[in-house]
C-alpha cells in the first residue's frame, strides 16, 4: 500500500528526515517510536503534504501512485488520513459544514453525487457513537473551545467519517487521560479492517497496549534504525532510547 524509499525532507533548510524507508501493507498496524526530535511528526507532515516541509530526495508510492506529486487534498481523497497531534481550531466554521464539505469532496473525487442531508446526518450520528462524542460538539466551530480529549476524539470521528485506507495517528495519546485514551483506541480498533492500515506515531508504549501493532519501528535522527515486533515497544519502555542511540552513533 505505502512504500517509502530513502526519504529526505527538510524545513527551513534544516534536514530532518535523512533517508527513511518503510513499507506498509493492507491490514497492518505499524508503530513508529523514537526520542524527541527524531523526525516522527515530520514524517506525518511530509506524507500529508504540509507545504512547510520540502522533500529533497526519495520516493513515496501510495497504491501505485506517486504520493509526492499529489496536493494535500488529493492525498486525503486517495485515502490518507492524519490524526493531528495538535488539531487546529477554526472559529466560525461549524463542524457540520466542515465535515459535509469534506465528505462531499471525497465523493466528488470518486465520481459520486453529494450525500443528501438526511444520509449525512445519519452517517454522522453513527460515527459519533463510535467515539462517544457529544452531539453538541457537531454544532460548534471546528475544535473551538474543545478540551484536549474532545479534540482527539474529534480526529477519530473525522477518520471514521472519511473511511481512509491509511491512517496516521500522530501522538494521538498525548494529552489524554486513561479513559479518553481507551475511547480513542476503541474507535481506532473498530475501524480496522483487512483492507486498511495504520501508522501509529507515539512516544510511549502506553497507547500500544490498546492499539496492538504488528510492527514497531524506531525512528532516530531521521531514519528508521531498528524494527521489530510489538515486544520491541516493551523493551523501549523498559530501557529507554539511549541504548539505541549508542548503537547507532557507535556505528
Amino acid at each position: 500500500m505505502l512504500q517509502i524509499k530513502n526519504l529526505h525532507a527538510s524545513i527551513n533548510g534544516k534536514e530532518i528526515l535523512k533517508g527513511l524507508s518503510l513499507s506498509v501493507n493492507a491490514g497492518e498496524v505499524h508503530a513508529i517510536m523514537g526520542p524527541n526530535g527524531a523526525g516522527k511528526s515530520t514524517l506525518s507532515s511530509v506524507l500529508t503534504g504540509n507545504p512547510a516541509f520540502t522533500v529533497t530526495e526519495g520516493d513515496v508510492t501510495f497504491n501505485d501512485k506517486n504520493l509526492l506529486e499529489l496536493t494535500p487534498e488529493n492525498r486525503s481523497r486517495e485515502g490518507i488520513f492524519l490524526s493531528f497531534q495538535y488539531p487546529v481550531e477554526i472559529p466560525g466554521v461549524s463542524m457540520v459544514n466542515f465535515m459535509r464539505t469534506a465528505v462531499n469532496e471525497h465523493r466528488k473525487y470518486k465520481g459520486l453525487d453529494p450525500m443528501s442531508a438526511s444520509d449525512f446526518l445519519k452517517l454522522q450520528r453513527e460515527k459519533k457513537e463510535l467515539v462517544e462524542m457529544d452531539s453538541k460538539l457537531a454544532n460548534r466551530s471546528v475544535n473551538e473551545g474543545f478540551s484536549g480529549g474532545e479534540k482527539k476524539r474529534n480526529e477519530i470521528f473525522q477518520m471514521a467519517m472519511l473511511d481512509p485506507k491509511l491512517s496516521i495517528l500522530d501522538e494521538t495519546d498525548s494529552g489524554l487521560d486513561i479513559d479518553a485514551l481507551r475511547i480513542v483506541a476503541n474507535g481506532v480498533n473498530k475501524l480496522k479492517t483487512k483492507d486498511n492500515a495504520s501508522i501509529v506515531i507515539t512516544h510511549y508504549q502506553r497507547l500500544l497496549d490498546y492499539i496492538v501493532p504488528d510492527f514497531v519501528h524506531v525512528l532516530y535522527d531521521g531514519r528508521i534504525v531498528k524494527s521489530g515486533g510489538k515486544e520491541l515497544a516493551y523493551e523501549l519502555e523498559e530501557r529507554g532510547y539511549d541504548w539505541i542511540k549508542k548503537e547507532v552513533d557507535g556505528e
Partner: protein
Amino acid sequence: MENKIKIIEKNTQIPPLGGEGAYIDLYKSHHESIKMHSASVMNSLRDAAFAQFKKLGFPTVALENYKYTDLKEALSVDYGLNINRIPIPVNPYDVFKCDVPGIHSYLYFVVNDGFYPVSDPHNSKLPDGVIIGSVKEVAATHPELLKDYFGKLSSTKEDGLVAFNGAFAQDGFFMYVPENVVLDKPVQLVNIMRSDVDFMSVSHNLIILEKGAKAQLLVCDHTVDEVRFLSNRVTEVFVAENATYEHYKLENTHNKTTNLSTLLIDQAKSSTVLANVITLHNGVTRNMIEIDLDGEGCETELCGMVIADKNQQVDNFTSIIHNKPNCNSRELFKYVLDDFSKGAFTGKLYVAKDAQKTAAFQTNRNILLKKTAKMRTKPQLEIYADDVKCSHGATIGSLDETAKFYMQARGISESEARLLLMFAFTNDVIENIRIPALQDRIKMLVEKRLRGELSKCEGCVICQ
C-alpha cells in the same frame, strides 16, 4: 430613447481641484429653483448650509478625517443634478421584483434622490399612526413632525459633504413611528440609481421613533445604468426613550459609483440601536456614522463588513459618543480585501467626563488576500470619565495557513478551504442581523460574492 432622462442642470466648467467652485456658482444661479422644488423646513437651513459649504469646500486628503479616501477625482466629474425634480421615467415595481424570501417587508423605493410616490400594492396597511413618505410630502401634511427634528444633528457638523447636502438636498425618505408602536415587519428602502448621463443624487432622510417604538429599516443601494453615479445622502435618526431601532445598510453598486453617506443617530435614555453596514460591491464608498448616546442606559451595537476587490475603496468612519453614564456599546467591523482594493476604518470612541460606568468595546479585523490590497485602521479613543471599561483591538492579517492545511488534509480543496475561512471570518457580522430571512439572504450573497459570482454587479442582486 424613450427612457432618456432630461437632466435640467449640467455643470460644464468644473475646476480641476476639488470642484466646489462650480457648485458654488450653481447654487448662486439656481438657489431659487432648488428652494421652489423643496420643503420649507429644508429651505430654512439651506443658506446657512451653503455658507458652511463655501467655507469648507469639498473635503480633501489634507483633512485628518478624509486622509484615507481621496475624493478629488470623483468630485470633479461633470454630473447632472435633477434640480427641477423632473420625474424619472422608471417604474421600480416593474424593474425590481424585490424578493428576499420570507422577509415580508414594507417596501419603498427612492429613485436617484426622489421618493417614489406609489407605494407597493403588496404592502399591508401600516400600524396606526406610522407615517412613511417623502420629506417634502410630510412637510406639507405634518409640518410639526419635521420642525423639531430636521437638521438637528446634521446642521452642526463641520463637514463639507454634510454642508453640501444641506445646500442641495431637496427631498428624502421619512419615517415616523409613534409612541409604543411596534412595526411588525421591517421597512425596506431600495435606492435605485437610474440615469443615462453621469448623475449626482443628493438626499436627506429623517427617521423618528417615539418612546417605546420599535422599527427595523433595511436600506439597499443599487445602481442600474453604467454611468458614473455620486450619491450624497444624510440620514438622521432619533430614537426616543425605550425605543428600539435597527438599521441595516446593504450596498451592492457598480464600480463607477461613489457613495458618500452620513448616518447620524441620536439615542435617548434606555434606547437600543443596532446598525449594520455591509458593503458587498461598490466603487468608492465612505460611510460616516455617528451615534450619540444622550441618555442613560443605552445599548448600542455598531457593526459592518466589507468585501472588496479590483480597485474598490471603502472607508467606514465611525464615532460613538458616550455622553451619559451606564451605556454599553459594541463595535465590530471586518474587511476582506483582494486585488488593489483599499479599506479604511476609523473608530472614534468618546466618553464624556460624566459618562461613568460606560462599557465600550471596539474590534476591527481585516484580511488582505493579496499584497497589493491596503488597509488602514485607526482606533481613536478619547476617555474623560474614570470609571469605565473600554477596549479596542485591530488586526490586519492573511488567511490562517494552518487552518487551511487542516482542511486540505481532510480533502477540502484549497479554494474551498479559503472560501470557508473567509466566510467564517465574516460570520459574526452576519450573526448580527436580527431579521432571519435577511440573514439567510446575506449569507448567500456573501458566499456568492466570495466565490466571485457577484464580481459584476448588473442591477439588483437582492431583488432578483
